[in-house]
């Protein structure tokens, strides 16, 4: 029996889809069978991040409405044969699926996959309730900014009200320089405020933009700091106890030379 994890945030643009793509890919790279489910109906992006946008024939609404069988809608990843994507529809909207349907779908997927990663849309309307319906536990993504943390707090309250207790936090887009200067909230400030367990912290990193451009999740990039953070998170999801990563940007002439040559 697999695990169903929903990746949510409340606030938009903080890195839910990027996180879903990267932890899904990381878990598949570790040998597990993984299915990524995009529930952002109408504004799908998980397909683009995975580089699979050309391969979509059937989508989530086709499956839940019975237009096709589940197997027909699962798109195999380019790199890993145990990784699949169930894409959202681009032409429907979030009221075309119900939480009850999502619960059944999650239960079915759980039987064949080790991990079911559900990418939740921004907001707290039906899209959110669809995404959390079948989940076993939740990852909340936030950035070190006031609005994102406030929304994350709301989402945590809603998750707990829905029975998804003890969600795990990912803090994304940290800038160690600003933190050192006292211009950005650090990890322990945010944990003080939100009072949840941290599962990972990801630095602001240009490699994410490049990986999205190419449709290749950064977790596979050995030179990417963000990729390294996602690799840490993937290990924690599997139950490994991993010490926190050092997010500080390294200094020195070797680093400047490396940057010149293109090693991030």
């Amino acid at each position, binding site marked *: 029996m697999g695990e169903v994890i929903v990746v949510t945030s409340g606030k938009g643009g903080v890195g839910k889809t990027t996180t879903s793509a990267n932890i899904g890919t990381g878990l598949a790279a570790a040998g597990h069978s993984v299915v990524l489910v995009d529930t952002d109906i109408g504004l799908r992006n998980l397909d683009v991040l995975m580089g699979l946008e050309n391969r979509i024939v059937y989508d989530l609404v086709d499956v839940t409405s019975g237009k096709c069988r589940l197997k027909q809608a699962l798109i195999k990843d380019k790199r890993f044969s145990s990784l699949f994507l169930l894409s959202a529809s681009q032409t429907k909207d979030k009221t075309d699926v119900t939480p009850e349907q999502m619960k059944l779908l999650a239960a079915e997927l759980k039987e064949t996959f080790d991990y079911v990663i559900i990418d939740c849309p921004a907001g707290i309307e039906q899209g959110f309730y669809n995404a959390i319906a079948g989940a076993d536990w939740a990852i909340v993504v936030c950035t070190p900014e*006031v609005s994102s*943390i*406030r929304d994350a*707090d*709301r989402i945590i*309250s809603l998750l707990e009200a829905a029975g998804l207790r003890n969600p795990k936090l990912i803090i994304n887009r940290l800038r160690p320089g600003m933190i050192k200067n*006292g211009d950005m*909230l650090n990890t322990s400030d945010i944990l*003080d*405020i939100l009072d949840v367990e941290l599962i990972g912290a990801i630095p602001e990193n240009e490699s994410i933009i490049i990986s999205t451009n190419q449709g290749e999740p950064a977790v596979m990039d050995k030179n990417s700091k963000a990729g390294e953070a996602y690799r840490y998170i993937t290990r924690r999801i599997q139950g490994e106890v991993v010490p926190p990563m050092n997010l500080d940007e390294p200094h020195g002439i070797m680093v400047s030379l490396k940057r010149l040559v293109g090693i991030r």
Partner: protein
Amino acid sequence: MLEFITHILGKENGYSKTVAKERLQLVLIHDRASMSPAMIDSLRKELIEVISNYMEINETALEFNLCQDDKEVALVTNIPFLKMKRDYAAKR
């Protein structure tokens, strides 16, 4: 040295995160309280119960509010009561 110069020039760096943290803590008290009116109700009921062990209160005139200014949020209550109970020791 650089910090000294920027300090003289009046550049306000290195403080904003403290402001952010304080603002967040205040705004979240309000957000959480409005998220669960049930919790506030329950708190009110339990408070009335405890106070009623010692005095008879005028429940209709009871005030029970979250008040906020720049610095803090406080639970402010006004509890008019009609008489002190004689047998409070027995209830403990």
